[in-house]
């Protein structure tokens, strides 16, 4: 299509042959991006002048946050633990549920087109929903806020781990699977002994990685009433108590850092 509109450049070589060089698409792509950026800037009211004039407001808040309010620690810890519990439970149940879902969604194990198509669709639909929107819906359903947050994290984990896992399953070496079937094992047995060992390391490492991200996500869930430290974030911002907010952020950074270090240690072992 593109080559028809912009005819390729003709080059005559010294031996008389002509070769065609396709035109670069870069100017065309650049033009589209420029147009998109222009209209986006119009729609969002992007304005450099405002940034330069008022960015100091941002740094005043940052400065206040850099003087954390240590007395607030007692209030933070219980909510921080709720956040950790939510993300841990949601991640582990999600990772467990993701395994059968991914198997049902992989086209080389399940031969029925309708079944694996359905599960693939469910996984991608789940993934499109932003976690916060799911948590928002869950808060209407469950009596306890922490449960609502856990459910939202659970659904996200299923969709994320499930997607990566079924891609891993579809890319494994099927030779061993066929060999085991040929000696008379059932499909489930051959999956257990031929494919499961191949995907186990990446399954565990994806789940750990997802858990890391979930701790960060869980921190904001409380903002919409789904339990955890987000509650306090909402409160402190409401009171404009930025030094307490700084304390919350500091605790979050420490927690996330510790969890990342642990999970990286185990993920390196799995590799």
């Amino acid at each position, binding site marked *: 299509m593109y080559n028809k509109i912009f005819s390729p450049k003709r080059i005559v070589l010294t031996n008389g042959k002509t070769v065609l060089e396709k035109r670069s698409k870069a100017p065309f792509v650049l033009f589209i991006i420029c147009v*998109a*950026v222009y*209209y*986006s*800037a119009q*729609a*969002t*009211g*992007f*304005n450099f002048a*405002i*940034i330069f004039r*008022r*960015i100091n*407001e*941002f740094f005043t*808040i*940052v400065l206040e946050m850099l003087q954390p309010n240590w007395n607030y620690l007692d209030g933070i810890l219980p909510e921080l633990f*709720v956040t*950790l*519990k*939510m993300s*841990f*439970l949601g991640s*582990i149940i999600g990772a467990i549920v993701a395994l059968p879902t991914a198997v049902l969604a992989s086209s080389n194990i399940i031969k029925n087109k309708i079944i694996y198509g359905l599960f693939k669709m469910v996984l*991608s*639909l789940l*993934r*499109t*929903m*932003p976690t*916060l*929107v799911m948590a*928002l*819906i869950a808060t*209407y*359903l*469950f*009596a*306890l806020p*922490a*449960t609502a947050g*856990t459910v939202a994290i659970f659904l996200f984990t299923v969709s994320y781990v499930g997607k990566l896992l079924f891609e891993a399953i579809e890319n494994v070496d099927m030779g061993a699977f066929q060999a085991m079937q040929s000696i008379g094992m059932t499909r489930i047995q051959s999956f257990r002994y031929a494919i499961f060992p191949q995907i186990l390391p990446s399954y565990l490492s994806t789940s750990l990685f997802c858990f890391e991200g979930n701790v*960060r996500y869980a*921190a*904001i869930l409380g*903002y*919409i009433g789904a339990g955890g430290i*987000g509650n306090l*974030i909402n409160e402190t*911002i409401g009171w404009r108590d930025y030094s307490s*907010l700084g304390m919350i*952020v500091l605790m*979050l*950074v420490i927690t*996330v*850092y510790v969890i990342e270090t642990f999970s990286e240690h185990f993920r390196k072992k799995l590799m």
Partner: protein
Amino acid sequence: MTTVERQLLAAPRTYRYYLFLLAFVFALIAWSVAEMSLRLDSNGMKIAFNIVGGLLDPDWKFLFDFTQSGVLYLLWETMAIALLGTLVGAVAAVPLSFLAASNIVPKPLAWMTRLLLIFIRTIPALVYGLMFIRVTGPGPFAGVLTIGITSIGMLAKLYVDAIEELDVKVLESMTSIGCTTFEKIRFGLIPQLLSIFLSIMIYRFDMNMREASILGLVGAGGVGAPLIFAMQGYRWQQVGSLLIGLIILILVIELMSNKLRAKIVNG
């Protein structure tokens, strides 16, 4: 004792280690479950049915409305926030990523920049949103800046990986044939990094669509604010049309971004 048996006994015994890990995980589960209860809200089921009903029977007029309050315009605004935010983040992440690459700058400086990046990454997007609202006032502009700064963390981290895998031999050979610094950057650095950077940016744009759709909850523009208002007002048909629009848009963008990235990486 046969050789096979001896080898079997010589294998490292790790079951204690695994047992300990398993016990630890179970202890954590027990600790977490204590906080939960599956009790439903008194009218939770009714609301669940209402949401499903809204999704099945959305407010069609609202869905195809391109005025300032219609779904199409809100989705367009969300997309604009994500696009500009990704660009802001992508530009800001480049210098930071070079400062954090341990093969370019001295180790302590790289380490400091990494620490800064961890801080930037950990502050939740909603907190940035509320901070930027103080700067720009409520509206999509605050959303752009928020998406920009939240993208920096991940973008810079992935950029750093690309920079640390740079093939420096190319640059050395260019020096040996007398290229200027500009030529080295243009023909030695950019071709190596551009496709990877672009692919990372498109991936982040895809993620930012989701982020941008929740920023409205704090008043930073996009589809989030009308969504939460419709929910609080129990207008389920409107919730349905907003969710349908959002899901379709995100699916389309994800498809496109996957295609584009495959094309960019494979050339």
